[in-house]
């Protein structure tokens, strides 16, 4: 059998060590060797954005990133977004606005959005579209996702923002 690679890295704020076949992608290592199945796959060719995780704060496609390259890096997956039982504001607004329908692409969108809001706490709609353009969603038509990012951004800035009535009940 093949010899295993062995790495140490930071995973969702904790130190982690894992051994795996050296050709494995970070996606495979997370899902198969660390049982963190929150990171999904849609193509395993870098086309859909579903497997996005943060490495040193940057959104990357874990299907195109070798597991061995995570050595000594800080990796964050969707499982690491909530603080204890407290959801990240993005997770809250995704849940409230129905931005997660089937939920399969949601981990990728959440992490890309988290990176965006770190860099740009007040993105306009076009900046949100631009940041999310590498992620495909087949359920929502993206609109509830934009609204959830906008609402979370406002809350993270400490601003009061009601859920927009039109996005819940439609236009009168």
């Amino acid at each position: 059998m093949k010899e295993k690679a062995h790495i140490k890295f930071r995973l969702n704020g904790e130190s982690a060590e894992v051994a795996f076949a050296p050709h494995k992608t970070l996606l495979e290592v997370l899902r198969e060797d660390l049982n963190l199945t929150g990171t999904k796959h849609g193509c395993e060719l870098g086309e859909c954005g579903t497997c996005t995780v943060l490495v040193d704060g940057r959104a990357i496609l874990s299907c195109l990133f070798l597991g061995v390259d995570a050595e000594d890096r800080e990796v964050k997956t969707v499982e690491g977004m909530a603080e204890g039982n407290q959801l990240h504001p993005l997770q809250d607004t995704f849940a409230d606005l129905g931005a997660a329908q089937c939920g399969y692409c949601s981990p990728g969108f959440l992490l890309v959005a988290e990176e965006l809001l770190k860099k740009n706490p007040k993105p306009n709609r076009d900046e949100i579209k631009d940041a999310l353009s590498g992620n495909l969603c087949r359920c929502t038509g993206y609109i509830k996702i934009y609204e959830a990012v906008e609402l979370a951004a406002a809350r993270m800035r400490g601003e009061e923002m009601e859920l927009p009535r039109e996005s819940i009940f439609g236009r009168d």
Partner: protein
Amino acid sequence: MKSDDSEKPLKVVGKPFRKVDARAKCTGQTKFADDIALPRMLYCRILRSHEPHAFIKRIDTSKALALPGVLAIITGKEMPIPYGILPVSQDEHALCIRKVRFIGDPVAAVAAIDEDVAFDAMNLIEVQYERLQTISSIEEAVTIDEPRIHEYGDGGNIHKKVSLEFGDVEEGFALADLIREDTFFYEGNTHLPMEQHAAVAYFDTDDKLTLWSSTQTPHYVHRALAKVLELPASHIRVIATPNGGGFGGKSDPFNHEIVVCKLSMITGRPVKVTLTREEVFYCHRGRHPVLMHVKTGVKKDGSITGMHFQSFLDGGGYGSYGVASTFYTGALQTVTYDIPRYKFQGVRCFTNKPPCGPKRGHGTPQPRYALEVHLDKIAEQLKLDPAEMRRQHLVKPNTVTANYLRIGSMGLGECLDKVVAGSGWKNKFSGWAQPNRKLPSGKGIGIACSSYICGAGLPIYWNSMPQSGVQLRLDRQGGVCVMCGSIDIGQGSDSILAYIVAEILGIDPFDIRVVTADTDLTPVDLGSYSSRVTLMTGNAAIQAAERAREFLVMAVAEKLGVPIENISLADRRAFDVENPEVGVSFAEAVVLAESKFGTIGTVGSYSPPPSPGKYKGAGVGPSPAYSYSAAVAEVDVDPSTGIVVVERIWIAHDIGQSINPVLVIGQVEGSVYMGLGEILMEEMAYRGNRNVVHKFPSMLEYKSPTTMEMCDVITYLIEDPDPNGPFGAKEVGQGPLLPVPPAVANAVYDAVGVRIDEVPITPEKVLKALREKQRGRAGRYGPNSVPQIDWPAPLRVQTPAEGGDGREMPHVAVHS
């Protein structure tokens, strides 16, 4: 259908609650099929045919079996019994036995200790084929009788021919002031769910089989497994895992599901398969490519005197849902505008391409596109405003159409009014006189309407049992568990169950445990297709909850010494309405009921009302209710590149009653998105010398809208409760897709004056049509004719207006 506590204000229904699984989905905790890993689990890979049409002469698995780590290899001869979703199309084998019918047809399967070994072993299997002539298009299928792709059907490579006539259509044409004929083509496209299909099977030491699978139809998978594996159904448990998107693409029983079961039976170990994205394209069962011809007679005011609709479906290599799809291309034309005489002829062909089946809107987006563009052209010829013309001739509520579809509530008029007013239609639509445009050159506006079923009137296999069942269990500590065979594919069906039960029992939806889609634990629901789930499971849930409520109310009334009708359930309490502070908690109410009656469990079930249509073929189209949608699209077309940008869509949807408006709007926006993808870019295109090799089996090359292409959507919800819907609710998962493609096509015409009568509207087609127009010819891109085929004499049915009884007429028809 309503709760009999009907005076009570709604506390849950119609409110924007979170989904019961929202938290799990936003934290990565939802377990999809590929997230399951069991101890000693093996991995499966399936060898698929690279030949589009061939006899299998020999399969040699010896080299593959010799590879270390390979535990089993199976071929078709081990599973000789055929299966298929429809009883009339049992034409698939878990692995092909004698021949292959498309590139991607499964031939052999490997179980190995890991995916890499399975992959290597798969590549060591040697298959010798004897090539057959391929059939790659509708035109070839209707002219080339031999070789036949299948040995059944309506002759040659025709799978199914349908010919129906309601009333005398020639008489209708004779009454018309204008008769118009048009030809359209709607290219096939695919569901592209983000989650690739996956399944895990375990045949355990008790000789019982469990399958976890990303399927929309666990009940049908259960039936197929019992049949093919020759196991008693009682020894098989199918658990549908939450689907990472379905859209119809996970509605057939699939070969990979049967294969992993067989491999687990052989090895005694759990076996998993996860399809690659390329394989998902081969599974397909997506939108049929449909060529259509429509001939309509109208009076000067646009009222229809008769319509003849023909459709030609490219079915691909297997039957799948195709017979139903064929009928659906002709069924729902009649439920939007009054069509007093109607003739439908449809034919589905077999071709050597991945099989087509149901995709969101199942068989109806293609004819709806054709009909709505055709009506736009009629409006132009009659110099009528296309919005006005549609508004004038709507089907009336509580009527029966010429083809015997019973219309209940009908909110399309209000939908039209909303989008016309909201879009500023009157200030934007230039009439048909282009010189005096209201919008700048290159900008255009278009309108279309549609309707969709809320579940099919008849089940897929004939039986008189309910289509949906719900079981409720009340715990003496106040817990409520609702169990139902329905499967959440992202639309929120688990939540709908919780909301409805919570409403009737006066508790919070998050107090409820929802257990779904497990054939061992949950009563049968037929599955997440044909927009049936909210209406059918909702009604079953109402019945189960009403029955539970009755136990609670009787016990509490006795305890409080007040009449039964005085007891109300709300805010987690049961109390006397005349003296609201007198009451007990919900948990105490359960204790009282359990003390009096024993363990509290109830069931509810739902069967659709019988349909008035009794003729052969009347099974497709009837529904307990019809949803309605109207859409206006505003586009910007660049005449130098042909690129169409859809800027905004206004859409109004007649939902009857929202059970949860956030989820309804999510379905509307998602439907608009998918319709936008279909009209602008999505296509299952084939290449190669035989036109049977899939051109784009990847997410990069199969173009679907990203955030960059998605348009703005303005949604209006019309709430006109339907008596057959739970709390009046109708469907929303599929219907709002339907008006989008034709609204965009009509807007393109308004923008640059060319008709693109073929979906998708790509820049090349727009440019070609513009060039034709510059040369003084008709600015049009699309098919000019349909194949001439021998149609059977139509089954003649007298319409309700003619005094018909819903049965076919006994004599042979005059017209053909």
